[in-house]
C-alpha cells in the first residue's frame, strides 16, 4: 500500500486501486448494516411514543363514527396482536422477521405489509424519480447560468423564482394550482391514472394519460427542491470560477463554455452528488404533503395514514424501506464521489 501512494493518480478506472476500493466498500457496507439496525430500533421506539396503541385508536375511531364499542374490544385486539407485550419483546420479534424479509401484517388494512408497499413503491419511485430528474435538468443549467452571468437580469430572475419556490409551502402551491385549473379550465388535478386505464398501464394512450397526471405533482414537489439546488450550484460554481486553474485554462485559449462545463462545473457538482443518498427519502417525505393534497397513490400518504392509526407494522415497514433507499443511495453517492473526486480516494485510505 505504502509504495503505491507515490504513484501519480489514475482517474481512468477502479481496478488500479481495487484493494482500497474493496476495503472502502466493506467498511461502508458494515456501517450500513449497523445504521439499518439503529434506524429500525429508533424508529420502533419513536412509533411507540405517542399515547395509546392501534387498539385504542381503532376503538376511538369507531366510537367517533358512532359505533357502540364494548369495553373488552380493545383488550381482545391487544391480545390478538400482542400489543400488551413489552416494547423490546415486540421490537425483537418484528426485527428478526424483518431481516428475513417478512414485513408482517398491516393491522389497519388486514393485508400483508409487503403487498401494500409493493403496490405503492413503483408509483413512488416514478413520481419521485421524475421529480428528481426535473429538478436537476432545470436547476443545474439555471444555477450554472446565474453563476456565470452573476448579477445579470437572468440571475436576478432565477434568484427571485428560487426564493419564491423555497418560501411557498408545497401544499399551498398544490392547492393554488388545483384551484386555478378548476376555475380556469374546469379540470380537477389529482390522482395518477384515469379510471379507463385501470387495467392497462403500458399502452400509448395509458402512458399519455399518466404524463397528464404526472406533471402537477412533479412541478409542485420540484419547485422547492429546485430552488435550493439553484442556490447551491450557483454558490459552488462562483467559488470555482475564481480559482487560478480556470484562469490558466482560459489563458491557454480553451473555449469558454467547454472550459466551464469541463472543470469548475464538475467540481461544483460534488455537494449535489454527495447528497443523492438523502435526496430520495427527503423527496418522499417532502412530497408526502403534495401527494396527500393531490391524491397520489404513493408511499407518503400510506405512511401518514399508518402513523395516524398507529399501525406499527405498516409504518415500520414503510420507514425501513425508506431507510434502505437512503442507505443504498448513500452508498451509490459514496462510490460516485470516489470516482469523481480524487481527494476522497486519498483521504479514504
Amino acid at each position, binding site marked *: 500500500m505504502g509504495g503505491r501512494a507515490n504513484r501519480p493518480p489514475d482517474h481512468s478506472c477502479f481496478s488500479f486501486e481495487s484493494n482500497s476500493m474493496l476495503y472502502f466498500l466493506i467498511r461502508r457496507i458494515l456501517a450500513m448494516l449497523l445504521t439499518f439496525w439503529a434506524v429500525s430500533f429508533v424508529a420502533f421506539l419513536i412509533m411507540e411514543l*405517542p*399515547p*395509546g396503541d392501534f387498539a*385504542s*385508536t*381503532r376503538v*376511538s375511531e*369507531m*366510537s*367517533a*363514527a*358512532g*359505533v*357502540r*364499542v*364494548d*369495553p*373488552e*374490544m380493545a383488550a*381482545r*385486539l391487544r391480545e*390478538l*396482536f*400482542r400489543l400488551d407485550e413489552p416494547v423490546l419483546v415486540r421490537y425483537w420479534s418484528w426485527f428478526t422477521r424483518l431481516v428475513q424479509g417478512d414485513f408482517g*401484517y*398491516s393491522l*389497519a*388494512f*388486514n*393485508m*400483508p405489509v409487503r403487498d*401494500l408497499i409493493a*403496490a*405503492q413503491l413503483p408509483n413512488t419511485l416514478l413520481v419521485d424519480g421524475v421529480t428528481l430528474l426535473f429538478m436537476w435538468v432545470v436547476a443545474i443549467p439555471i444555477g450554472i447560468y446565474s453563476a456565470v452571468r452573476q448579477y445579470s437580469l437572468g440571475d436576478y430572475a432565477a434568484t427571485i423564482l428560487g426564493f419564491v419556490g423555497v418560501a411557498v409551502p408545497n401544499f399551498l402551491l398544490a*392547492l393554488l394550482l*388545483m*384551484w386555478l385549473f*378548476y376555475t380556469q379550465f*374546469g*379540470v*380537477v388535478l*389529482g*390522482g*395518477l*391514472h384515469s*379510471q379507463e386505464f*385501470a387495467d392497462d398501464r403500458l399502452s400509448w394512450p395509458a402512458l399519455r394519460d399518466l404524463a397528464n397526471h404526472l406533471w402537477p405533482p412533479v412541478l409542485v414537489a420540484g419547485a422547492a427542491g429546485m430552488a435550493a439546488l439553484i442556490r447551491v450550484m450557483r454558490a459552488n460554481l462562483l467559488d470555482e470560477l475564481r480559482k487560478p486553474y480556470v484562469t490558466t485554462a482560459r489563458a491557454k485559449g480553451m473555449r469558454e463554455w467547454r472550459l466551464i462545463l469541463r472543470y469548475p462545473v464538475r467540481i461544483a457538482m460534488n455537494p449535489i452528488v454527495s447528497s443523492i443518498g438523502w435526496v430520495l427519502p427527503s423527496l418522499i417525505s417532502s412530497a408526502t404533503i403534495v*401527494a*396527500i*393534497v*393531490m*391524491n397520489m*397513490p404513493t408511499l407518503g*400518504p*400510506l405512511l401518514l*395514514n399508518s402513523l395516524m*392509526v398507529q399501525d406499527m407494522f405498516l409504518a415500520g415497514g414503510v420507514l425501513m424501506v425508506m431507510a434502505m433507499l437512503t442507505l443504498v443511495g448513500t452508498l451509490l453517492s459514496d462510490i460516485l464521489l470516489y470516482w469523481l473526486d480524487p481527494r476522497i480516494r486519498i483521504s479514504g485510505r
Partner: protein
Amino acid sequence: MIPIIGRLRPAVLAGLCGVALTAVQVSAEVPSLQSLVDAGTLPPMAERLPVDPFVVTPIDSIGVYGGDLNLALKRGDGTHLLRLVGYEGLFSWDLAWQEMLPNLASGYEVNDDATEYTIHLREGVRWSDGSPFTTADIAFAYDDLLKNPEWLGARPDYIANPEDTEIEVIDDFTFKVHLAVPNGLYIFQLTNVDGTQIAIFNKAYCSQFHPDYNPRANDDAVAAGLADWRALIEQNCPEMGGANRWMNPDRPTLEAWVVQSPPDATAEFSIFTRNPYYFKVDTEGNQLPYLDRLNFSLSNEREDMILRAMNGEVDFQDRHINALTQKSVYLENAAIGGYHLVDQIPSAMNTMVLMFNQEVADPVLREIFTQRDFRVAMSFATDRQEIIDAVYVGVGQPYQAAPRPESRFYDEEYATQYLEYDPDRANQMLDALGLAERDGDGFRLRPDGSRLRINVETFDTARPDWVDQLEVIKQQWTRVGIELDVRVIDRNLVDEHREANLHEMQIWGGDGGLDVIADPRYYMVSSSESAFGVPWYNWLWNDPTAAGSIEPPASVQEQKALYDQLFQTPTPEGQDELMRQILAIGRDNFYVMGISLAPRGYAVVRDNVHNIPDEMPAAYTYPTPGPMQMGQIYKSE
C-alpha cells in the same frame, strides 16, 4: 303474548304486499342481466325475488335502469360504505326517522315484559350467490360470532351481555330471542345501523373460517400469515363497521350492490356492481336497484373530494364534502357543476357541549363545579352570539344541550334556559358563591387562595371549530374573572384522561339531538363520554365497587332507574313518557352547557340524479343516506 307491530304501521304493510304481488307478474327483466338470464346462468327475476319482496315507494318517480353513481370515498372510510350500501338489517328506519319498517324481517311479536321476541324473516330472500337467507345465518351470527367472547368485532348493544340473551330457531324463517333482562328497545336497537351486525354473515361461506365448523381454521390462518382464526375470519368475513368489510369480493351479501374491485389502501378507484338477488322492488314490481354500479374515486383528503364535487364528478354525497364553510362556494359553482344542494337535519343539537367534571380530583374545584349556580353563572358569562359571529359567520342560534326543535322531545325551557349574555349577573352569582376575592390580574381566587383556573383539554383534528370556540370563550370568561386554559393535545390522550378521570373540563359535539333515547349522554349519565361524571358512569353502569367508581347524587341515580324502566317498557309511548321524565331532571340539574344549535347540513346532488329527498336526518344510528333506499335512485341523461 300480544302481537306488537310497534311502529310498523300495519296498513302500510298490507298495502305494500298487495302491490308487490300484482306487480311482480308484469315486470320485465333488468336490461343488464338479460343476457345472463338468456344464457341460463341466472334465473329470471321472478325466481330471484322473495315471495313477498320489500316494496319501495320511489320518492318522486319510477326510475329507469342502468348507469353508474359516481361518488368520492376517503381512503379507509368504511363508515361511508356502511351508510350507503350496508344498511340492510332485519328492520329499517323510514325516511323521516319515525317508523321502524320490517326489512329482511317481515314482522315480530313481543311478550308483555319485553323478554321474548319472535321475529319472522321475509321468505325467499337470497344472498348475492343465490343461496337462501334463513334463520341458520342469524343463529350463526348470534351464537358463533356476536356472543363468542373470542370474536374480535364490536358487540352491539342488543347483545351487551352475551349470557343474558339466547336465540331459539323455530323454523327456517322464524326465531325467538329470550332475554334475561327485559329490553323494550330490542327492535329499536335492531333497526339502528348496529342492528345489521346479525344479518351480514352467510353461514355457508363464513363458517369455513370458524374452528367449530372447520377444524383446520387455525392452520389456514397460520398458512395465510395470521395469528389464528380470529384474524382469518376478520379478514374474510369481517364485522359490520370498518373498511375491512368491503375488501372481499367473494363474500355473499344481501345488499343492493356487491363489491367488485375493493377500495383497499392502495386502490385509486372502487366499483360495486348490482346484486341480481336484491330483495326489493319498486311499486311497479321492477327489481331494484335501478343503477348498475357504484363508482368510487378514492382520496386521501377532503380538498380534492370537494373540488371533484364542485366539478360535477360526484352524483350524490354528503360525507366528507359538506363542510359548512364550503356551502357558499358550492352555491357559486352550482351551475358549472350541474348540481344542487339538499338539506340535512343533523342529529346533533349543539356545535359544542362544555362539561365541568363534577368529580374532578381537586376537592376545591369539585366543590365549585358541583354548585349548580356556578354552572349557570358560566352560562350567563358566555356571549353565544359573539361565538356564532366569530366562528360560524353568523349562522347559528344560541342553544343549550337539549333535544332539537325537530325532535318530539323538544322542551323550550331546556333548550333556552340561561342563554342570555349577562356578565353582571354572572359576576353577582360568582361573588355569592364565595369567589369574590380577586388577584392582581383580576382573576377570582378559590377558597384556598389560589387562582380559579380551569384546564380544558381537547384536540383539533376532528373539529377545529371547537378550539376556535374555546378561544372566544376564554376571553369572555376572563371578563368575569375566570381563567380558562385551553390545551390542545392528542386525541388519544383526551380519551385516556377522561377514562381515568384526570380531566377538569372537556368538550364534545352535541350528540343526541334527534336520537334522544339512543344517546342521552348529555341529559343523564349514560356513557363514559358523559365527561361531567365518569366515576358516576362507572358506579351506575359497570362495577360500583371498582376503583374508578363513585356513588352519584340522587338525581343521577333516579335518571338511571328511569332509563332501566324505559328498557323494560315494550311500548314506544311508555318509553317516550319515561324519557320525558329523564329529560326534566336533566333540565333542572343543568349538568352541561351548550353554545349554538348545530346548523342544518347539506348534500350535493347532480341535477340528473333523481329520487333524492329534499331533506333527511343526518346521523349514525339512522345511517344517512341508507334509510332513503339507495336502490330507488336513478339517473337520466
